[in-house]
C-alpha cells in the first residue's frame, strides 16, 4: 500500500527523492499512512480544495481494499 502512494506522489512532486511514505499505525482493519514531501511540494499533492489528495486517496483505497483494510492517508511536509 505504501508502494502505490510512493509511485503516485513521486510522479507529482518536484523533489521525488524527499518523498517518505510510512505506516504510522495499524489497528484492526485501519491503517494510518503518512506521506511526507518537501515543504514546497505539499500543494502539489493536496491541490485546490484538496482535489489531488482526494484522487490519491481514491486510488490508494483500491490497494487497501485488496488487503481488506481501510486506509487513512495524511499528507505532511
Amino acid at each position, binding site marked *: 500500500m505504501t*508502494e502505490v502512494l510512493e509511485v503516485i506522489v513521486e510522479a507529482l512532486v518536484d523533489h521525488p527523492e524527499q518523498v517518505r511514505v510510512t505506516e504510522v499505525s495499524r489497528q484492526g482493519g485501519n491503517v494510518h499512512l503518512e506521506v511526507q514531501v518537501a515543504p514546497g511540494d505539499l500543494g502539489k499533492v493536496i491541490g485546490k480544495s484538496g482535489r489531488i489528495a482526494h484522487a490519491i486517496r481514491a486510488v490508494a483505497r483500491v490497494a487497501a481494499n485488496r488487503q481488506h483494510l481501510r486506509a487513512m492517508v495524511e499528507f505532511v511536509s
Partner: protein
Amino acid sequence: MGQVEAEQQNTEAEEPYTPGDVAADFVQDVLDAIPLDAEVELEQTADGAWLVDVVGPEAGEIIGRYGNTLNSLQYLASLVTNRRSGEHTRLVLDANGYRERRRNALVDQALTLAAEVIRTSQEAELDPLGAFERRIIHNALANHPQVTTYSEGEDPDRRVIIAPRPPA
C-alpha cells in the same frame, strides 16, 4: 557502435516518447504497485486525444463506484503527463470498456428524462456529474427540438438541468 545499439537508436528516433507514453507508463506503474493483474494499451484518437485502456482479469477493480476511482486515476495521470510534457494533453482513461457502457447509460438517462420534461413541461435535473459526463448529456440533447440543457451548482454538486425549449 554494435548493430543492436544502432537498431535501438533507430527505434527511438522513429517512435518518440509521446505524452501518451508518459500517461501509459504512469498508469502501468500504479497498477503494478497496487498490485493489479492488468495491462495498459495506448492509442491516439482521430482528434488527438490519448486513450489509455486498462485491460486484463483485474482491470475492473480500478473503475470504482460510478467510475470514481477511474476518474481519480485519470486526473492524476493528466497532472503527471502535463507536468512532464509541458503541454496540455487530452487524456482519457478507460477500463474494460467502462466509458462506452457509461456513455450509453448516460445517453439513455438523458433521453428518458427529456421525454419526462416534454410530457410535464417542467424542468428536471440529473444527479451530480463530473465535467466529462455532463458534456455527454449536453451533447446528447444539443440538437433536440423540444428541450434544452444547462448546468447549475458548484462541483462536486454541479448537475445538468433539462428544460423545455421555449417556442422559437
